[in-house]
Structures are given as structure tokens and as C-alpha cells.
């Protein structure tokens, strides 16, 4: 079985009883998730289900009230975001957080500098990544005026430069045209082929059902289901709580 909750050696990320409240609102309640190395996992749920909160907890931007997060068997719950990044957890943001005060190349350079303090050497690494993603032609331009698709891709390039083994993508294709979506799917498959484990939040069902090997469904801060896309598409609880119809086109 590809995904299990027993913490076997193949898992890269384990969440145990992760709980978080904001005042009286239970954002996440006793979440248990186990993600296997190299997998593409989709995280879905209606607005306010707790998906981005979970991302913020995995990447260290939010603390937990209770629970445990293990990355490569190591307890990371108390580590700062930059420590988690250095361990290999990369992320993008729902609204891309690009450094508008520096060029596209320098944006990627910030990620590359994590592995080497040599600026020139890191610039070469950053350039190679941009070339690989076909963004080298805009390396010297400033990202302020870039379209949303390029901003999302730039955020991925930047995270990629820090050599993550787990990449969290928050709404990778929302707002993209069909053509841009296809390009993004190519990119995600490329990342997966490099051996990077991917955890993706997405609202576009067709996309997430197609690309993911495993889906986790959140609703009102609780995990209501997980399984293969086919299992999720047939799951009555998910259909009732989220999808609202019996048949899901994949």
C-alpha cells in the first residue's frame, strides 16, 4: 500500500494529531496524515477547511496547539520556517510572494544561496533552473509586471533553487488559462520526476484528480477522507460535504 499511517520508512512527512484553534474556532482538529516519499498528494476541501492553515503549520509559519509533525522521521514541530526550509521543505503561497525589489534571476538566487554562500556560483545555479523551466529569457527583468502564471512559476523556481525534497504548492493553477494549466502540469510532473514529493492545495477538481496519486480531504478542520482519486470521487462523505454531486468527471 502506498500510504499508511504506521510511519514506515518510506514516509517523508507525518502529521500526528495536529490541532489548532483561533479563539473559539477550531481550524484543525486531530489531523493525521502520512505522506510517502516521491508522491504527488492533493489536499482539497471547501473554503475555510483549514488547508492553508495546515500548510502554514508544516512550513513553520504557524504553531500548533497540540500534535506532532515529523519530517524524514525527525520531529520538526518547534523549528522555525527557515530551519524547515533548510531541512528540505519548500513552499509557495496562495498569492505569490515575489520579491518585487529584485530581478527574476535574483529572486531564484535567494533560494540557491541556501546551499552556497558564493553569489556567483549560486547565480549560475539559479540561471540553470530558469533555463530548465524556460524562464531564462526574462532573467534580468523585474517581476512586478509579470502575469500571474509567470509569478507562480517563478515562485516554484525560487523554491526549487533551495533543493527541497518536499514542496508545498498552494493553489498552483488557480487563475491560469487552459494553456498555462497544461504548462504547469508539465512542470509539476517534471518536479515529481526529479524525486520531489509534492503536496498540492487546489480547487480545480479536474486538475487535482488527474495529477494526484493520493488525495486528502479536509472539511471544517477535520480530515474527512483520504484515498486514491477514484476512491475520493466515490466517497459519500466527500460528495455530501464538498462535491455536492454523485459523479465526478476525472
Amino acid at each position, binding site marked *: 500500500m502506498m500510504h499508511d499511517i504506521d510511519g514506515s520508512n518510506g514516509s517523508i512527512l507525518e502529521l500526528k494529531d495536529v490541532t489548532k484553534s483561533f479563539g473559539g474556532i477550531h481550524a484543525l482538529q486531530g489531523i493525521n496524515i502520512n505522506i510517502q516519499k516521491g508522491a504527488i498528494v492533493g489536499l482539497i476541501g471547501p473554503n475555510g477547511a483549514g488547508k492553508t492553515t495546515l500548510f502554514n503549520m508544516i512550513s513553520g509559519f504557524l504553531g500548533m496547539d497540540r500534535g506532532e509533525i515529523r519530517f524524514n522521521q525527525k520531529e520538526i514541530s518547534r523549528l522555525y*520556517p*527557515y530551519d524547515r526550509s533548510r531541512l528540505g521543505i519548500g513552499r509557495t503561497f496562495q498569492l505569490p510572494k*515575489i*520579491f518585487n*525589489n*529584485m530581478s527574476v534571476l535574483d529572486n531564484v538566487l*535567494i533560494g540557491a544561496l541556501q546551499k552556497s554562500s558564493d553569489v556567483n556560483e549560486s547565480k549560475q545555479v539559479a540561471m540553470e533552473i530558469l533555463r530548465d523551466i524556460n524562464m531564462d529569457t526574462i532573467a534580468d527583468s523585474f517581476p512586478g509586471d509579470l502575469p500571474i502564471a509567470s509569478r507562480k512559476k517563478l515562485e516554484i523556481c525560487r523554491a526549487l533553487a533551495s533543493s527541497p525534497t518536499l514542496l508545498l504548492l498552494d493553489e498552483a493553477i488557480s487563475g491560469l488559462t487552459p494553456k498555462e494549466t497544461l504548462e504547469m502540469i508539465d512542470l509539476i510532473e517534471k518536479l515529481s520526476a526529479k524525486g520531489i514529493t509534492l503536496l498540492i492545495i487546489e480547487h480545480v477538481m479536474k486538475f487535482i484528480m488527474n495529477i494526484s496519486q493520493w488525495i486528502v480531504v479536509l472539511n471544517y478542520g477535520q480530515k474527512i477522507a483520504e484515498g486514491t482519486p477514484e476512491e475520493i470521487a466515490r466517497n459519500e462523505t466527500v460528495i455530501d460535504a464538498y462535491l455536492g454531486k454523485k459523479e465526478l468527471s476525472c
Partner: protein
Amino acid sequence: MKVTTGQRLQSYIKDPLVVFIAVLGILPLLSSHHFYLQMLTLVFLFAFFSEAWNIISGFGKQFSLGHVAFFGIGAYITGILYADYGISPWIGLALSGVFGILLALLIGFATFRLRAFFFTLSTIACAEALRVLFTYWRLGSTGLGTTIPAVNGLGNLTFSHEIYYTYLAYILLLTVVSVTYRITKSRIGYYLFATGGDEEAAKSLGVNTYRIKLIVFAISGFFTAIGGGFYCMYMRYIEPCMVFAVDFSVQFAVFAIVGGLGTIAGPILGSVILIPLSTFFRSWIGGLFTPIGFLIYGIILVLIILFLPGGLMKGISMMKDKIAQRISSRKE
């Protein structure tokens, strides 16, 4: 490929910033008029302060409005050690730098984990607290003001001719510019830009933004405190209301903003233009009309900020782009 010293020298000569600073270095030789040299000393000194402020507030976007705290601490450490205990101002300057670092770490430690807004407020509060503290302290001893004895000599950092001060201020400026330049080309510099750009994104890429801000704030505090010590030896008189005056903090910021925030040349350009301008309005339009002079100075500042929000450096780069466009369209 290894770059030879000759090649490096050639690239420096082609750099407009190097040419600009070199030209500034020649200016004191053009006239020995005391008023002229005094103005140049202030230009260099305030370019130095503004540059030191710009490291953390321009490049790092951590907006300090209490940099006068470092300035005042530096002035008092150097001044009191020399005037009351006869300790060489050079030792005083070194100690000022150390205390500048410690003060920066203290303020930064308490506020850098909070949002930038709290940092700005705490810098103002710290400067004001120090002003009040020093006012009470000095009231209880020898009176508010401290006069620095004038015994000429390099060891006492006291000179008979203005040009020595002018060139010492120039050396201070050169030092802070070269340190800033090195920072901007290093990993710390890039991490600082990232921190100023978007702190969360920087953290997600492995940048310990808290540490970067602390280091850079300490560097900025170090230079400002040393400058404060030098200013004390130059003016030969200090009092709390003078060296902890919020006006100084604002001036450091204004010169950098008008010149170009987050650029190396910006603070120098701001100082080169605004110091002579304010001196002109103060001295030529003097007497009863002094307030009109200040008014015109204020209007000029507003106009620059209104029409060139990126500062004069932004205006220069826009002009360069336009000229380049015209040349290329002519060629076609």
C-alpha cells in the same frame, strides 16, 4: 577566469559611483575658504550618516526614525571620556562603535520579531528615552552642556584647519560606502533585500530574517555611533537636546529618500544637494526672512518626493533609459 588587478581597476574607473565619489574627494582642494570647507564637512558627514541609515532602512526596509540614539550615544561616550577623563577620542570612537552595536542589538532583539511598524516606534521611543535620561543625568552634574577642550593634535582629534575635518569626514564616508558595497554583493546583502522585499517568502527560502536584520542594524548602529563621536569632536560642544534631537533622525532619512532609498549613491546625492540648499536658505535668506527660506526648502523637498517617488537616483536611471531609447531609435 581570474580578474587581474588592472582589469578590476578599469572596471572601477568606469563605475559612475566611483567617479562621483572621487570627484567629491577633490572638492576640498578647490578652495580653502572656511565656510566652503565647513559645508563640505557637513555634506560628507551627513552623507555618511544617511548611508549608514540606508543600510538597514533603505536596503532592508526596516524604517528607523530613531537613529539619533546611536548618534547621541557615540557623541556622549567620546565627549565625556575625553572632556571628563582625558581619554583619547580615538579610543572614545572605538568604544562608541561598540556601544552602537550593543544598543542596536538591544533594540533589535526586542522588536525585530514584531512587525516593522513596532520597530519604527521603538527606535523613536529609544532615542527620546535616551534624551530624557541624559538630560537628567547631566543636570545633576556639570550642567546640561559639555564643552570639549580644544588641544590641537591628531591624537586629540582636534585640528586648527577645517580641511582636516573635511577629509576625515570623507574617509568616514568612503568607509561606509565600501562596507555597504561589499554587503550588497554578498549573501547577507541578498538576504537583506529579500527580507525587505517579503519577509515570509525569505523565511520560506531558508533566510533567518531576524538574524540578518540584527546583523545589519548592528552595522548601521556601529557607524552612526562612530559618526556621533566624530561630530562631537568637530562641534566641540554637546548637550542632550542637541545630539538626541529627532531632527537628525529625520534628516538621515530625508537625504536617503530624496537621493534614492536602497541605492548606494542616493544618500550621498541627497546630502550633496540638500545640505548646500538648506545652508543657502539659512544664511543668504537670513534675518526676518529665515522662515521663508525653510518654507522654500520644504516645498523643494515635497516637489522632489511628489515627482520622483523613487528619489533622484530613480530620475537619473529614467533619464538614462530615455537617452538610450532615443539613441537606438535614431540608429534605426
